[in-house]
Protein backbone atom coordinates (compact mmCIF):
# COMPACT_ATOMS: atom_id res chain seq x y z
CA UNK A 1 0.00 0.00 0.00
CA UNK A 2 1.17 3.51 -0.85
CA UNK A 3 2.27 5.64 2.16
CA UNK A 4 -0.17 8.41 1.19
CA UNK A 5 -3.13 6.00 1.08
CA UNK A 6 -2.08 4.60 4.42
CA UNK A 7 -1.93 8.11 5.91
CA UNK A 8 -5.42 8.88 4.57
CA UNK A 9 -6.74 5.69 6.12
CA UNK A 10 -5.03 6.37 9.45
CA UNK A 11 -6.46 9.89 9.48
CA UNK A 12 -9.94 8.57 8.70
CA UNK A 13 -9.64 5.97 11.48
CA UNK A 14 -8.50 8.56 14.00
CA UNK A 15 -5.01 7.09 14.47
CA UNK A 16 -3.49 10.37 13.32
CA UNK A 17 -4.88 13.87 13.78
CA UNK A 18 -5.36 15.83 10.53
CA UNK A 19 -2.38 18.03 11.54
CA UNK A 20 -0.15 15.03 12.19
CA UNK A 21 -1.20 13.41 8.91
CA UNK A 22 -0.52 16.63 6.97
CA UNK A 23 2.87 17.15 8.59
CA UNK A 24 3.87 13.55 8.03
CA UNK A 25 2.69 13.71 4.40
CA UNK A 26 4.78 16.84 3.79
CA UNK A 27 7.84 15.39 5.46
CA UNK A 28 7.65 12.23 3.32
CA UNK A 29 7.93 14.35 0.19
CA UNK A 30 11.47 15.43 1.02
CA UNK A 31 14.40 14.99 -1.27
CA UNK A 32 12.41 13.48 -4.14
CA UNK A 33 13.67 16.11 -6.56
CA UNK A 34 17.05 15.96 -8.18
CA UNK A 35 17.80 19.53 -7.10
CA UNK A 36 21.46 20.44 -7.29
CA UNK A 37 21.18 23.59 -5.21
CA UNK A 38 22.25 27.15 -6.13
CA UNK A 39 25.97 26.55 -5.55
CA UNK A 40 25.84 23.34 -7.57
CA UNK A 41 24.27 25.08 -10.59
CA UNK A 42 26.77 27.95 -10.46
CA UNK A 43 29.63 25.47 -10.31
CA UNK A 44 28.24 23.61 -13.31
CA UNK A 45 28.08 26.86 -15.35
CA UNK A 46 31.66 27.71 -14.34
CA UNK A 47 32.91 24.28 -15.40
CA UNK A 48 31.13 24.54 -18.75
CA UNK A 49 32.90 27.86 -19.47
CA UNK A 50 36.21 26.38 -18.37
CA UNK A 51 35.70 23.35 -20.60
CA UNK A 52 35.04 25.62 -23.59
CA UNK A 53 38.33 27.44 -23.00
CA UNK A 54 40.16 24.16 -22.58
CA UNK A 55 38.73 22.88 -25.85
CA UNK A 56 39.81 26.03 -27.70
CA UNK A 57 43.33 25.82 -26.27
CA UNK A 58 43.63 22.17 -27.20
CA UNK A 59 42.35 22.87 -30.70
CA UNK A 60 44.98 25.59 -31.11
CA UNK A 61 47.74 23.31 -29.82
CA UNK A 62 46.69 20.52 -32.17
CA UNK A 63 46.64 22.97 -35.08
CA UNK A 64 50.23 23.98 -34.32
CA UNK A 65 51.28 20.36 -33.96
CA UNK A 66 49.54 19.45 -37.22
CA UNK A 67 51.36 22.29 -39.00
CA UNK A 68 54.68 21.18 -37.53
CA UNK A 69 54.29 17.50 -38.30
CA UNK A 70 52.28 17.34 -41.50
CA UNK A 71 52.46 20.60 -43.46
CA UNK A 72 55.83 21.90 -42.24
CA UNK A 73 57.35 25.37 -42.89
CA UNK A 74 56.66 26.31 -46.46
CA UNK A 75 59.36 27.11 -49.04
CA UNK A 76 59.31 28.98 -52.31
CA UNK A 77 58.41 26.31 -54.88
CA UNK A 78 60.49 28.13 -57.56
CA UNK A 79 63.72 28.09 -55.53
CA UNK A 80 65.76 24.92 -55.90
CA UNK A 81 66.04 23.25 -52.52
CA UNK A 82 69.43 22.81 -50.93
CA UNK A 83 68.92 19.24 -49.91
CA UNK A 84 72.35 18.96 -48.33
CA UNK A 85 71.58 21.85 -45.95
CA UNK A 86 68.28 20.31 -45.00
CA UNK A 87 69.76 16.90 -44.22
CA UNK A 88 71.67 16.11 -41.07
CA UNK A 89 75.39 16.17 -41.75
CA UNK A 90 78.08 14.45 -39.72
CA UNK A 91 78.65 16.57 -36.60
CA UNK A 92 75.66 18.92 -37.23
CA UNK A 93 71.84 19.19 -37.49
CA UNK A 94 70.17 19.98 -40.79
CA UNK A 95 67.81 22.96 -41.36
CA UNK A 96 64.79 20.65 -41.74
CA UNK A 97 65.19 19.14 -38.27
CA UNK A 98 65.83 22.53 -36.66
CA UNK A 99 62.50 23.92 -37.92
CA UNK A 100 60.64 20.71 -37.24
CA UNK A 101 62.02 20.39 -33.70
CA UNK A 102 61.16 23.97 -32.82
CA UNK A 103 57.52 23.63 -33.86
CA UNK A 104 57.21 20.24 -32.25
CA UNK A 105 58.61 21.62 -28.98
CA UNK A 106 56.04 24.44 -29.01
CA UNK A 107 53.24 21.99 -29.75
CA UNK A 108 54.35 19.61 -27.04
CA UNK A 109 54.70 22.44 -24.53
CA UNK A 110 51.07 23.31 -25.22
CA UNK A 111 49.62 19.83 -25.67
CA UNK A 112 51.23 17.89 -22.83
CA UNK A 113 50.14 20.24 -20.03
CA UNK A 114 46.66 20.45 -21.56
CA UNK A 115 46.34 16.67 -21.73
CA UNK A 116 47.61 16.35 -18.17
CA UNK A 117 45.17 19.04 -17.14
CA UNK A 118 42.30 17.25 -18.81
CA UNK A 119 43.23 13.91 -17.24
CA UNK A 120 43.50 15.35 -13.74
CA UNK A 121 40.31 17.36 -14.19
CA UNK A 122 38.46 14.22 -15.33
CA UNK A 123 39.81 12.25 -12.42
CA UNK A 124 38.48 14.90 -10.00
CA UNK A 125 35.13 14.90 -11.80
CA UNK A 126 34.95 11.10 -11.42
CA UNK A 127 35.77 11.31 -7.72
CA UNK A 128 33.20 14.06 -7.21
CA UNK A 129 30.60 12.01 -9.08
CA UNK A 130 31.36 9.08 -6.76
CA UNK A 131 30.57 11.37 -3.84
CA UNK A 132 27.25 12.45 -5.42
CA UNK A 133 26.39 8.85 -6.27
CA UNK A 134 27.14 7.71 -2.72
CA UNK A 135 25.04 10.60 -1.40
CA UNK A 136 22.14 9.65 -3.66
CA UNK A 137 22.32 6.12 -2.24
CA UNK A 138 22.29 7.49 1.32
CA UNK A 139 19.32 9.71 0.52
CA UNK A 140 17.41 6.89 -1.09
CA UNK A 141 17.86 4.80 2.05
CA UNK A 142 16.71 7.68 4.25
CA UNK A 143 13.59 7.93 2.06
CA UNK A 144 13.09 4.20 2.31
CA UNK A 145 13.07 4.45 6.10
CA UNK A 146 10.72 7.44 6.02
CA UNK A 147 8.27 5.30 4.02
CA UNK A 148 8.22 2.79 6.87
CA UNK A 149 6.97 5.33 9.42
CA UNK A 150 3.25 5.12 8.51
CA UNK A 151 3.27 1.30 8.48
CA UNK A 152 5.02 1.14 11.84
CA UNK A 153 2.73 3.66 13.49
CA UNK A 154 -0.36 1.98 12.06
CA UNK A 155 0.62 -1.55 13.16
CA UNK A 156 1.38 -0.54 16.74
CA UNK A 157 -1.65 1.78 17.04
CA UNK A 158 -4.07 -0.76 15.65
CA UNK A 159 -2.70 -3.43 17.96
CA UNK A 160 -3.11 -1.16 21.00
CA UNK A 161 -6.66 -0.44 19.93
CA UNK A 162 -7.41 -4.14 19.37
CA UNK A 163 -5.97 -5.05 22.78
CA UNK A 164 -8.10 -2.43 24.51
CA UNK A 165 -11.18 -4.05 23.02
CA UNK A 166 -10.20 -7.55 24.01
CA UNK A 167 -7.59 -8.40 26.58
CA UNK A 168 -5.92 -5.68 28.56
CA UNK A 169 -7.20 -3.07 30.97
CA UNK A 170 -8.21 0.26 29.45
CA UNK A 171 -5.68 2.11 31.64
CA UNK A 172 -2.80 0.12 30.18
CA UNK A 173 -4.01 0.84 26.67
CA UNK A 174 -4.28 4.54 27.46
CA UNK A 175 -0.74 4.56 28.80
CA UNK A 176 0.51 2.88 25.61
CA UNK A 177 -1.55 5.31 23.50
CA UNK A 178 -0.23 8.46 25.19
CA UNK A 179 3.35 7.14 25.02
CA UNK A 180 2.86 6.44 21.34
CA UNK A 181 1.34 9.87 20.71
CA UNK A 182 4.27 11.60 22.43
CA UNK A 183 6.86 9.62 20.43
CA UNK A 184 4.90 10.20 17.23
CA UNK A 185 4.98 13.99 17.68
CA UNK A 186 8.75 13.86 18.22
CA UNK A 187 9.16 11.58 15.22
CA UNK A 188 7.21 13.91 12.94
CA UNK A 189 9.29 16.90 14.14
CA UNK A 190 12.57 15.06 13.45
CA UNK A 191 11.34 13.90 10.02
CA UNK A 192 10.38 17.48 9.17
CA UNK A 193 13.88 18.66 10.09
CA UNK A 194 15.28 16.13 7.61
CA UNK A 195 12.80 17.31 4.98
CA UNK A 196 13.83 20.97 5.39
CA UNK A 197 17.54 20.18 5.18
CA UNK A 198 17.03 18.04 2.11
CA UNK A 199 15.31 20.93 0.29
CA UNK A 200 18.71 22.62 0.01
CA UNK A 201 19.66 20.31 -2.84
CA UNK A 202 22.28 17.61 -3.15
CA UNK A 203 24.94 19.88 -4.63
CA UNK A 204 24.90 22.21 -1.64
CA UNK A 205 24.26 19.91 1.27
CA UNK A 206 27.30 17.69 0.67
CA UNK A 207 29.52 20.76 0.99
CA UNK A 208 28.12 22.02 4.27
CA UNK A 209 29.59 20.50 7.42
CA UNK A 210 26.89 22.16 9.52
CA UNK A 211 23.99 20.96 7.35
CA UNK A 212 25.25 17.41 7.19
CA UNK A 213 25.87 17.34 10.95
CA UNK A 214 22.32 18.64 11.49
CA UNK A 215 20.93 16.08 9.05
CA UNK A 216 22.88 13.35 10.79
CA UNK A 217 21.48 14.41 14.17
CA UNK A 218 17.93 14.53 12.74
CA UNK A 219 18.19 11.12 11.11
CA UNK A 220 19.60 9.64 14.33
CA UNK A 221 16.66 11.17 16.13
CA UNK A 222 14.18 9.60 13.67
CA UNK A 223 15.88 6.22 14.17
CA UNK A 224 15.64 6.54 17.96
CA UNK A 225 11.97 7.54 17.80
CA UNK A 226 11.13 4.63 15.52
CA UNK A 227 12.84 2.31 17.97
CA UNK A 228 10.84 3.94 20.76
CA UNK A 229 7.65 3.05 18.91
CA UNK A 230 8.89 -0.53 18.67
CA UNK A 231 9.66 -0.37 22.39
CA UNK A 232 6.00 0.48 23.09
CA UNK A 233 5.29 -3.03 21.83
CA UNK A 234 7.56 -4.46 24.50
CA UNK A 235 4.66 -4.55 26.94
CA UNK A 236 2.65 -6.69 24.54
CA UNK A 237 4.24 -10.17 24.15
CA UNK A 238 1.67 -11.26 21.58
CA UNK A 239 2.46 -8.32 19.33
CA UNK A 240 6.21 -8.61 19.60
CA UNK A 241 6.16 -12.35 18.84
CA UNK A 242 3.91 -11.94 15.80
CA UNK A 243 5.34 -12.46 12.32
CA UNK A 244 3.91 -9.11 11.20
CA UNK A 245 5.86 -7.33 13.92
CA UNK A 246 8.98 -9.36 13.13
CA UNK A 247 8.60 -8.24 9.51
CA UNK A 248 8.33 -4.56 10.44
CA UNK A 249 11.25 -4.81 12.82
CA UNK A 250 13.33 -6.55 10.14
CA UNK A 251 12.44 -3.87 7.58
CA UNK A 252 13.35 -1.09 9.98
CA UNK A 253 16.64 -2.66 11.04
CA UNK A 254 17.45 -3.58 7.43
CA UNK A 255 16.87 0.00 6.31
CA UNK A 256 18.98 1.37 9.16
CA UNK A 257 21.80 -0.97 8.21
CA UNK A 258 21.53 0.18 4.60
CA UNK A 259 21.76 3.79 5.82
CA UNK A 260 24.87 2.92 7.83
CA UNK A 261 26.52 1.11 4.89
CA UNK A 262 25.64 3.95 2.48
CA UNK A 263 26.92 6.51 5.00
CA UNK A 264 30.18 4.58 5.42
CA UNK A 265 30.66 4.45 1.62
CA UNK A 266 29.74 8.14 1.26
CA UNK A 267 32.36 9.07 3.86
CA UNK A 268 34.93 6.88 2.08
CA UNK A 269 34.15 8.59 -1.24
CA UNK A 270 34.41 12.01 0.45
CA UNK A 271 37.78 11.07 2.01
CA UNK A 272 39.17 10.01 -1.40
CA UNK A 273 37.86 13.16 -3.10
CA UNK A 274 39.01 15.55 -0.36
CA UNK A 275 42.50 14.00 -0.40
CA UNK A 276 42.65 14.38 -4.20
CA UNK A 277 41.75 18.09 -4.14
CA UNK A 278 44.29 18.80 -1.40
CA UNK A 279 47.29 17.06 -2.95
CA UNK A 280 49.38 18.61 -5.71
CA UNK A 281 48.77 18.95 -8.62
CA UNK A 282 45.08 18.20 -7.96
CA UNK A 283 44.79 21.19 -5.64
CA UNK A 284 45.72 23.59 -8.52
CA UNK A 285 43.11 22.13 -10.84
CA UNK A 286 40.54 21.97 -8.02
CA UNK A 287 41.01 25.70 -7.30
CA UNK A 288 40.51 26.73 -10.93
CA UNK A 289 37.79 24.14 -11.63
CA UNK A 290 35.70 25.04 -8.58
CA UNK A 291 36.04 21.66 -6.86
CA UNK A 292 35.10 22.36 -3.25
CA UNK A 293 35.76 20.29 -0.18
CA UNK A 294 32.89 17.94 0.73
CA UNK A 295 31.57 17.37 4.24
CA UNK A 296 31.44 14.05 6.07
CA UNK A 297 28.05 12.66 7.06
CA UNK A 298 28.65 12.19 10.76
CA UNK A 299 28.19 13.93 14.07
CA UNK A 300 30.91 16.23 15.30
CA UNK A 301 31.35 13.94 18.25
CA UNK A 302 30.33 10.67 16.67
CA UNK A 303 29.17 7.92 18.93
CA UNK A 304 29.50 4.39 17.57
CA UNK A 305 26.57 3.18 19.61
CA UNK A 306 23.49 2.24 17.68
CA UNK A 307 20.07 1.58 19.08
CA UNK A 308 19.49 -2.13 19.56
CA UNK A 309 16.09 -3.45 20.35
CA UNK A 310 15.48 -7.12 20.11
CA UNK A 311 12.70 -9.27 21.34
CA UNK A 312 13.03 -12.99 22.00
Amino acid at each position, binding site marked *: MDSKDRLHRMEADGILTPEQAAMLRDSLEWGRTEAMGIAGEERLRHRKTLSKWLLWLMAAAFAVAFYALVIGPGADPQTPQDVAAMMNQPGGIGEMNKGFSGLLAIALLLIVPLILWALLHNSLVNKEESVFKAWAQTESNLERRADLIPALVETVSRYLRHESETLIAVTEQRSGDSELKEVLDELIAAQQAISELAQKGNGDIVESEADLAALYAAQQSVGRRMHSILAVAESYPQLRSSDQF*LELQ*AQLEGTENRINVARMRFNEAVATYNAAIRKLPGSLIARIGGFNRKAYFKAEDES*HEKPVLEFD
Partner: protein
Amino acid sequence: MRGPQTIAALICLCLCVGCGSPAGRNELVQDQAGLLDTGQRGRIELFHTLLRDDFDIDYRVVTADGEEDIDALSARLFERLGAGELSSSGLGLLLVIDPVQDRVRLEVGYALEGSYPDAFVAYIEQRQMVPFFRSGRIADGILATTELIVQRAQRAAKNAGLAGEVWLEGSGGAGASTTAHIDRGPIEPVAKTTAVQTVGASPAEILAEYFKRMQSRDANPDLNIYTPATRQMLRKWVITPAQMDNIVKTYRNCDAQAERIDASGRLSVIRYPVRQRKCAPWFFVKINDRWALDLTVMQTAIRFGRDNSWHFELGAEHPYEYAFTDWSFDAYGFPRHE
Protein backbone atom coordinates in the same frame (compact mmCIF):
# COMPACT_ATOMS: atom_id res chain seq x y z
CA MET B 1 72.66 -12.78 -17.71
CA ARG B 2 71.45 -15.32 -15.21
CA GLY B 3 71.46 -12.76 -12.35
CA PRO B 4 69.14 -10.13 -13.93
CA GLN B 5 66.87 -12.88 -15.36
CA THR B 6 66.49 -14.47 -11.94
CA ILE B 7 65.74 -11.08 -10.33
CA ALA B 8 63.18 -10.30 -13.04
CA ALA B 9 61.52 -13.68 -12.51
CA LEU B 10 61.40 -13.09 -8.75
CA ILE B 11 59.88 -9.62 -9.24
CA CYS B 12 57.24 -11.11 -11.56
CA LEU B 13 56.47 -13.81 -9.02
CA CYS B 14 56.19 -11.28 -6.21
CA LEU B 15 53.92 -9.08 -8.34
CA CYS B 16 51.72 -12.06 -9.24
CA VAL B 17 51.40 -13.07 -5.59
CA GLY B 18 50.76 -9.49 -4.56
CA CYS B 19 48.14 -8.91 -7.21
CA GLY B 20 46.35 -12.24 -6.68
CA SER B 21 43.20 -12.85 -4.68
CA PRO B 22 43.35 -12.40 -0.92
CA ALA B 23 43.70 -15.65 1.00
CA GLY B 24 40.42 -17.61 1.09
CA ARG B 25 38.67 -15.23 -1.31
CA ASN B 26 36.81 -18.02 -3.07
CA GLU B 27 36.39 -20.42 -0.16
CA LEU B 28 32.75 -21.26 0.56
CA VAL B 29 33.32 -21.76 4.30
CA GLN B 30 35.83 -19.91 6.48
CA ASP B 31 35.66 -21.12 10.04
CA GLN B 32 37.82 -18.58 11.85
CA ALA B 33 36.03 -19.15 15.17
CA GLY B 34 36.45 -22.95 15.00
CA LEU B 35 32.74 -23.78 15.30
CA LEU B 36 32.71 -26.56 12.71
CA ASP B 37 34.53 -29.87 12.39
CA THR B 38 35.88 -31.09 9.07
CA GLY B 39 32.83 -33.23 8.30
CA GLN B 40 30.37 -30.41 9.00
CA ARG B 41 32.40 -27.97 6.96
CA GLY B 42 32.46 -30.49 4.08
CA ARG B 43 28.67 -30.95 4.25
CA ILE B 44 28.06 -27.20 4.13
CA GLU B 45 30.48 -26.81 1.22
CA LEU B 46 28.72 -29.63 -0.64
CA PHE B 47 25.27 -28.13 -0.08
CA HIS B 48 26.39 -24.68 -1.10
CA THR B 49 28.14 -26.02 -4.20
CA LEU B 50 24.85 -27.69 -5.19
CA LEU B 51 23.03 -24.40 -4.54
CA ARG B 52 25.44 -22.71 -6.94
CA ASP B 53 25.09 -25.45 -9.53
CA ASP B 54 21.28 -25.44 -9.39
CA PHE B 55 20.46 -21.77 -8.85
CA ASP B 56 23.70 -19.88 -9.55
CA ILE B 57 23.78 -18.52 -5.97
CA ASP B 58 27.22 -17.97 -4.44
CA TYR B 59 26.56 -18.56 -0.71
CA ARG B 60 29.51 -18.09 1.66
CA VAL B 61 29.76 -18.83 5.37
CA VAL B 62 32.21 -17.15 7.74
CA THR B 63 32.54 -17.64 11.49
CA ALA B 64 34.16 -14.57 13.06
CA ASP B 65 36.01 -13.85 16.27
CA GLY B 66 33.96 -10.99 17.65
CA GLU B 67 36.30 -8.06 17.10
CA GLU B 68 33.92 -5.94 15.03
CA ASP B 69 30.23 -5.06 14.87
CA ILE B 70 28.65 -7.86 12.83
CA ASP B 71 26.71 -5.53 10.49
CA ALA B 72 29.78 -3.51 9.51
CA LEU B 73 31.91 -6.66 9.36
CA SER B 74 29.44 -8.39 7.02
CA ALA B 75 29.37 -5.46 4.58
CA ARG B 76 33.16 -5.35 4.59
CA LEU B 77 33.59 -9.13 4.24
CA PHE B 78 31.06 -9.29 1.42
CA GLU B 79 33.26 -6.92 -0.55
CA ARG B 80 36.60 -8.40 0.52
CA LEU B 81 35.62 -12.01 -0.18
CA GLY B 82 33.86 -11.08 -3.41
CA ALA B 83 30.64 -12.91 -2.48
CA GLY B 84 28.68 -13.30 -5.71
CA GLU B 85 31.79 -13.61 -7.87
CA LEU B 86 31.33 -17.37 -8.21
CA SER B 87 27.87 -16.78 -9.67
CA SER B 88 27.55 -15.87 -13.32
CA SER B 89 24.78 -13.37 -12.42
CA GLY B 90 26.42 -11.89 -9.32
CA LEU B 91 23.97 -13.59 -6.94
CA GLY B 92 25.71 -13.49 -3.57
CA LEU B 93 24.83 -14.37 0.03
CA LEU B 94 27.11 -14.24 3.06
CA LEU B 95 26.36 -15.75 6.45
CA VAL B 96 28.47 -14.41 9.32
CA ILE B 97 28.30 -16.11 12.73
CA ASP B 98 30.02 -14.44 15.66
CA PRO B 99 30.00 -16.70 18.76
CA VAL B 100 31.78 -14.08 20.92
CA GLN B 101 29.13 -11.40 20.41
CA ASP B 102 26.51 -14.15 19.99
CA ARG B 103 25.22 -12.61 16.76
CA VAL B 104 24.45 -13.95 13.33
CA ARG B 105 23.90 -12.02 10.09
CA LEU B 106 22.87 -13.08 6.61
CA GLU B 107 24.03 -10.39 4.20
CA VAL B 108 22.19 -10.31 0.87
CA GLY B 109 23.82 -8.96 -2.29
CA TYR B 110 22.13 -6.31 -4.46
CA ALA B 111 21.15 -8.89 -7.08
CA LEU B 112 19.20 -11.02 -4.59
CA GLU B 113 17.44 -8.25 -2.66
CA GLY B 114 14.22 -8.87 -4.58
CA SER B 115 14.19 -12.61 -3.90
CA TYR B 116 15.34 -12.49 -0.28
CA PRO B 117 13.83 -9.42 1.42
CA ASP B 118 14.98 -8.46 4.92
CA ALA B 119 11.80 -9.79 6.52
CA PHE B 120 12.33 -13.24 4.97
CA VAL B 121 15.95 -13.28 6.12
CA ALA B 122 14.92 -12.32 9.67
CA TYR B 123 12.27 -15.05 9.57
CA ILE B 124 14.65 -17.85 8.53
CA GLU B 125 17.24 -16.70 11.04
CA GLN B 126 14.90 -16.45 14.00
CA ARG B 127 12.42 -19.20 13.13
CA GLN B 128 14.79 -21.76 11.63
CA MET B 129 18.47 -21.16 12.37
CA VAL B 130 18.43 -19.94 15.98
CA PRO B 131 16.45 -22.94 17.38
CA PHE B 132 19.30 -25.20 16.14
CA PHE B 133 21.95 -22.81 17.47
CA ARG B 134 20.27 -22.90 20.88
CA SER B 135 21.04 -26.63 20.98
CA GLY B 136 24.62 -25.99 19.86
CA ARG B 137 23.95 -27.51 16.41
CA ILE B 138 25.63 -24.83 14.31
CA ALA B 139 26.10 -26.84 11.11
CA ASP B 140 22.52 -28.19 11.25
CA GLY B 141 21.22 -24.65 11.74
CA ILE B 142 23.15 -23.44 8.70
CA LEU B 143 21.99 -26.35 6.54
CA ALA B 144 18.36 -26.14 7.68
CA THR B 145 18.38 -22.48 6.66
CA THR B 146 19.97 -23.33 3.33
CA GLU B 147 16.97 -25.61 2.71
CA LEU B 148 14.62 -22.63 3.04
CA ILE B 149 16.88 -20.57 0.81
CA VAL B 150 16.67 -23.36 -1.78
CA GLN B 151 12.88 -23.53 -1.53
CA ARG B 152 12.58 -19.80 -2.11
CA ALA B 153 15.01 -20.04 -5.02
CA GLN B 154 12.83 -22.79 -6.52
CA ARG B 155 9.76 -20.59 -6.28
CA ALA B 156 11.61 -17.58 -7.70
CA ALA B 157 13.03 -19.69 -10.55
CA LYS B 158 9.49 -20.79 -11.44
CA ASN B 159 8.34 -17.19 -11.68
CA ALA B 160 10.57 -14.42 -12.96
CA GLY B 161 13.88 -15.98 -11.95
CA LEU B 162 16.29 -14.91 -9.24
CA ALA B 163 18.26 -12.11 -10.84
CA GLY B 164 16.64 -8.87 -11.83
CA GLU B 165 17.33 -7.31 -15.22
CA VAL B 166 19.88 -4.97 -13.71
CA TRP B 167 22.25 -6.03 -11.00
CA LEU B 168 25.12 -4.44 -9.21
CA GLU B 169 28.08 -6.12 -7.63
CA GLY B 170 28.35 -6.25 -3.87
CA SER B 171 25.90 -5.56 -1.10
CA GLY B 172 24.18 -2.42 0.11
CA GLY B 173 23.59 -3.70 3.63
CA ALA B 174 20.49 -5.81 2.89
CA GLY B 175 19.71 -8.83 5.04
CA ALA B 176 19.16 -9.17 8.76
CA SER B 177 21.08 -9.86 11.92
CA THR B 178 19.87 -11.40 15.13
CA THR B 179 21.05 -12.78 18.44
CA ALA B 180 22.36 -16.29 17.78
CA HIS B 181 21.59 -17.72 21.26
CA ILE B 182 24.36 -20.29 20.76
CA ASP B 183 24.20 -23.07 23.38
CA ARG B 184 21.50 -21.26 25.38
CA GLY B 185 19.31 -24.38 25.42
CA PRO B 186 16.06 -25.01 23.54
CA ILE B 187 12.90 -23.07 24.31
CA GLU B 188 10.47 -25.46 25.96
CA PRO B 189 7.20 -25.75 24.02
CA VAL B 190 4.41 -23.67 25.48
CA ALA B 191 2.34 -26.02 27.65
CA LYS B 192 -0.77 -26.84 25.69
CA THR B 193 -3.05 -29.75 26.16
CA THR B 194 -1.41 -33.05 25.23
CA ALA B 195 -4.62 -35.06 25.35
CA VAL B 196 -6.48 -34.92 22.08
CA GLN B 197 -9.69 -36.84 21.64
CA THR B 198 -8.42 -39.73 19.53
CA VAL B 199 -10.96 -42.39 20.43
CA GLY B 200 -12.80 -43.32 17.28
CA ALA B 201 -10.80 -40.80 15.22
CA SER B 202 -9.76 -41.95 11.75
CA PRO B 203 -6.17 -41.56 10.46
CA ALA B 204 -7.40 -38.61 8.34
CA GLU B 205 -8.74 -36.92 11.47
CA ILE B 206 -5.49 -37.58 13.34
CA LEU B 207 -3.60 -36.04 10.41
CA ALA B 208 -5.93 -33.02 10.41
CA GLU B 209 -5.19 -32.56 14.13
CA TYR B 210 -1.46 -32.79 13.38
CA PHE B 211 -1.73 -30.07 10.71
CA LYS B 212 -3.72 -27.94 13.18
CA ARG B 213 -0.93 -28.30 15.72
CA MET B 214 1.68 -27.41 13.14
CA GLN B 215 -0.33 -24.33 12.15
CA SER B 216 -0.34 -23.13 15.75
CA ARG B 217 3.39 -23.97 15.95
CA ASP B 218 2.82 -26.50 18.70
CA ALA B 219 5.99 -28.61 18.78
CA ASN B 220 4.96 -30.50 21.90
CA PRO B 221 6.32 -34.04 21.40
CA ASP B 222 4.01 -35.56 24.02
CA LEU B 223 0.77 -35.18 22.10
CA ASN B 224 -1.23 -38.41 22.09
CA ILE B 225 -1.67 -38.20 18.32
CA TYR B 226 1.88 -39.64 18.06
CA THR B 227 2.96 -43.24 18.64
CA PRO B 228 5.16 -43.78 21.74
CA ALA B 229 8.22 -44.33 19.49
CA THR B 230 7.47 -41.08 17.66
CA ARG B 231 7.19 -39.18 20.94
CA GLN B 232 10.54 -40.53 22.03
CA MET B 233 12.10 -39.50 18.72
CA LEU B 234 10.53 -36.02 18.71
CA ARG B 235 11.85 -35.26 22.20
CA LYS B 236 15.37 -35.42 20.73
CA TRP B 237 14.54 -33.36 17.66
CA VAL B 238 14.79 -29.66 17.05
CA ILE B 239 11.49 -28.68 15.48
CA THR B 240 11.54 -25.07 14.38
CA PRO B 241 8.59 -22.75 13.78
CA ALA B 242 9.71 -22.44 10.14
CA GLN B 243 9.62 -26.23 9.71
CA MET B 244 6.09 -26.33 11.10
CA ASP B 245 5.03 -23.47 8.80
CA ASN B 246 6.61 -25.36 5.93
CA ILE B 247 4.65 -28.54 6.60
CA VAL B 248 1.38 -26.59 6.62
CA LYS B 249 2.34 -24.71 3.44
CA THR B 250 3.46 -27.86 1.58
CA TYR B 251 0.39 -29.97 2.36
CA ARG B 252 -2.12 -27.18 1.76
CA ASN B 253 -2.24 -28.14 -1.92
CA CYS B 254 -1.95 -31.92 -1.56
CA ASP B 255 -4.94 -34.08 -2.48
CA ALA B 256 -5.03 -36.96 -0.03
CA GLN B 257 -6.17 -40.30 -1.41
CA ALA B 258 -8.32 -42.77 0.52
CA GLU B 259 -6.69 -44.31 3.58
CA ARG B 260 -5.01 -47.64 2.82
CA ILE B 261 -5.43 -49.95 5.80
CA ASP B 262 -3.54 -53.24 5.87
CA ALA B 263 -5.15 -56.67 6.21
CA SER B 264 -4.65 -56.81 9.97
CA GLY B 265 -6.38 -53.44 10.35
CA ARG B 266 -3.45 -52.25 12.48
CA LEU B 267 -1.55 -50.11 9.95
CA SER B 268 -2.73 -47.31 7.72
CA VAL B 269 -1.19 -45.03 5.09
CA ILE B 270 -2.41 -41.74 3.68
CA ARG B 271 -0.71 -41.01 0.40
CA TYR B 272 -1.03 -38.46 -2.40
CA PRO B 273 -0.98 -38.72 -6.21
CA VAL B 274 2.48 -39.40 -7.63
CA ARG B 275 2.42 -36.14 -9.59
CA GLN B 276 2.32 -34.23 -6.26
CA ARG B 277 5.93 -35.09 -5.64
CA LYS B 278 6.46 -32.89 -2.61
CA CYS B 279 3.59 -34.55 -0.71
CA ALA B 280 5.17 -37.49 1.11
CA PRO B 281 2.86 -40.15 2.59
CA TRP B 282 1.91 -40.38 6.27
CA PHE B 283 1.95 -43.59 8.31
CA PHE B 284 -0.33 -44.62 11.18
CA VAL B 285 -0.42 -47.43 13.74
CA LYS B 286 -3.45 -48.53 15.74
CA ILE B 287 -2.55 -48.86 19.42
CA ASN B 288 -5.24 -49.74 21.97
CA ASP B 289 -7.89 -49.10 19.35
CA ARG B 290 -6.62 -45.56 18.65
CA TRP B 291 -4.84 -44.44 15.54
CA ALA B 292 -1.52 -42.64 16.10
CA LEU B 293 0.89 -40.93 13.71
CA ASP B 294 4.11 -42.89 13.14
CA LEU B 295 6.81 -40.39 12.16
CA THR B 296 9.67 -42.85 12.78
CA VAL B 297 9.17 -44.28 9.27
CA MET B 298 9.41 -40.78 7.84
CA GLN B 299 12.78 -40.59 9.52
CA THR B 300 14.13 -43.98 8.39
CA ALA B 301 12.51 -44.68 5.03
CA ILE B 302 11.59 -41.36 3.40
CA ARG B 303 14.14 -39.05 1.82
CA PHE B 304 13.81 -35.82 -0.15
CA GLY B 305 15.69 -34.91 -3.34
CA ARG B 306 17.23 -31.56 -4.23
CA ASP B 307 13.89 -30.36 -5.59
CA ASN B 308 12.11 -31.58 -2.42
CA SER B 309 10.54 -34.56 -4.20
CA TRP B 310 10.13 -37.47 -1.79
CA HIS B 311 11.41 -40.99 -2.38
CA PHE B 312 11.97 -44.16 -0.40
CA GLU B 313 15.44 -44.78 0.98
CA LEU B 314 16.83 -47.69 -1.03
CA GLY B 315 17.01 -50.87 1.06
CA ALA B 316 15.06 -49.39 3.98
CA GLU B 317 12.53 -51.90 5.22
CA HIS B 318 9.22 -50.87 6.74
CA PRO B 319 5.86 -52.50 7.37
CA TYR B 320 3.93 -50.10 5.12
CA GLU B 321 5.09 -51.52 1.78
CA TYR B 322 1.64 -53.08 1.28
CA ALA B 323 0.24 -49.60 0.55
CA PHE B 324 2.49 -49.06 -2.47
CA THR B 325 2.27 -52.37 -4.33
CA ASP B 326 0.29 -50.69 -7.14
CA TRP B 327 3.08 -48.12 -7.73
CA SER B 328 6.40 -48.69 -9.44
CA PHE B 329 9.60 -46.99 -8.32
CA ASP B 330 12.73 -46.00 -10.22
CA ALA B 331 16.26 -47.07 -9.34
CA TYR B 332 16.57 -44.26 -6.77
CA GLY B 333 13.30 -45.01 -4.97
CA PHE B 334 11.22 -42.21 -6.56
CA PRO B 335 7.62 -43.28 -7.34
CA ARG B 336 7.15 -43.44 -11.12
CA HIS B 337 3.48 -43.86 -11.82
CA GLU B 338 0.31 -45.23 -10.35
